């Protein structure tokens, strides 16, 4: 066990986990349900039948990393927070390896490197239990029904608003606007001649024009194609050239 853990670096994604197909599906189910790294950690501590106040950190860290690899293999998106916890575990593990007698000799009470994690786990576990209580409450409450609509409920179609509703409604109104504007642009298509005129003006006004930026200004694919054709046309017919100073650098249009 100990040797195996030593292999774990931050490259644990490349490690191959060994589980048989039979338990695989079961595992997948469980993995999807972990609400976070603390949840997974608690599960592992229970599974190992370890004492939360004296966590066998090497073993638990090893198991934790193994689970993360499994999640990766099963294409379960791993939140960054799971990785952060992995790093924390490895850090605690390395601290545990440092000799602590030196400090103890001075009669000082040196903190257990696991203390902070244990405190967090204990705190988290309370809320996990509270979440379970809420789950039970809502299950019971779903068995309770209120009366059907009656004549006097003329407000039925209406909604009870919160500040969040105000903001989301306001945002929807604003986005309705931008949609309308974009539709208008779409309707009046820009011809190649118009595009050439715009392009020519821009080059002569600014003497140099960044192509990528010019293309970014286009609102849709059709405009982009027109713009591209205009560039080809203007290079072919006018005293304008394409300049790229460095390989993969920006391309600019410049007056000759």
């Amino acid at each position, binding site marked *: 066990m100990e040797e195996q853990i030593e292999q774990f670096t931050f490259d644990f994604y490349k490690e191959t986990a060994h589980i048989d197909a039979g338990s695989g599906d079961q595992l997948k189910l469980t993995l999807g349900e972990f609400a976070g790294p603390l949840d997974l950690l608690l599960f592992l501590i229970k599974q190992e039948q370890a004492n939360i106040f004296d966590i066998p950190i090497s073993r638990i860290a090893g198991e934790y990393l193994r689970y993360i690899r499994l999640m990766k293999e099963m294409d379960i998106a791993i939140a960054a927070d799971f990785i952060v916890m992995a790093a924390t575990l490895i850090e605690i593990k390395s601290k545990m390896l440092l000799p602590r007698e030196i400090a103890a000799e001075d009669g000082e009470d040196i903190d257990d490197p696991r203390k902070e994690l244990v405190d967090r786990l204990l705190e988290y576990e309370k809320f996990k239990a509270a979440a379970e209580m809420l789950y039970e409450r809502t299950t019971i409450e779903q068995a309770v029904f*209120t009366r059907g609509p009656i004549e006097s409920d003329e407000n039925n179609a209406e909604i009870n*608003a919160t500040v*969040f509703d105000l*903001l989301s*409604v306001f*945002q929807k109104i604003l986005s309705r606007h931008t949609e309308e504007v974009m539709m208008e642009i779409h309707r009046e298509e820009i011809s190649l001649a118009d595009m050439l005129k715009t392009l020519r003006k821009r080059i002569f006004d600014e003497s140099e024009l960044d192509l990528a930026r010019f293309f970014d200004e286009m609102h849709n694919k059709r405009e982009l194609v027109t713009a591209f054709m205009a560039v080809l046309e203007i290079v072919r017919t006018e005293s304008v050239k394409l300049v790229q100073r460095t390989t993969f650098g920006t391309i600019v249009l410049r007056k000759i």
Partner: protein
Amino acid sequence: MEVSSEIEKSRSAIELAAVIEALIFVSDEPITSRLLSEVISEDREIVETVLQALKIDYEKRDSGLQIREIAGGWQISTRTEYHDEVRQFLKTRPSAKLSLASLETLAVIAYKQPVTVPEILEIRGVQSVSAIKTLLEKRLIITKGHKETVGRPMQYGTSKDFLIQFGLKDINELPSIEDFADLVS
């Protein structure tokens, strides 16, 4: 209608009355004895006997409610004796509820205040006159003087009641789009 076999056939008269009462209560229109007998898999005669018993039961206990047969179905409603109080309550009850049109108008006023009717029209793209009237009646908005521009249109803003109803200390507490940047999108 599907009839569930899980529901036990053997029920006491009391249970039967209770389940029928619950079904009438949740129904959004008068429910027929036929439908009741289907849902609970009991003979229609039994259901009708229970219904009559329930009706008498409500009368006997001087309830504010009554169970009655109406339009071929059964319904729970308030007793006519208490209609004065009921009417008064319905008239005066505070309602935080808003139609979508009112909510939209309120959102525009809250975020753009002080704002005029033509400005709201421009933002919403719809006339908001009746919504503004509703919001004024509910005291969620107040007038904020005339705008010194052509026609001197009236400007509107949110009221103190608005802050109370939406649980805000002051108007700066209104969440900005940045506050929900991670949430909305």
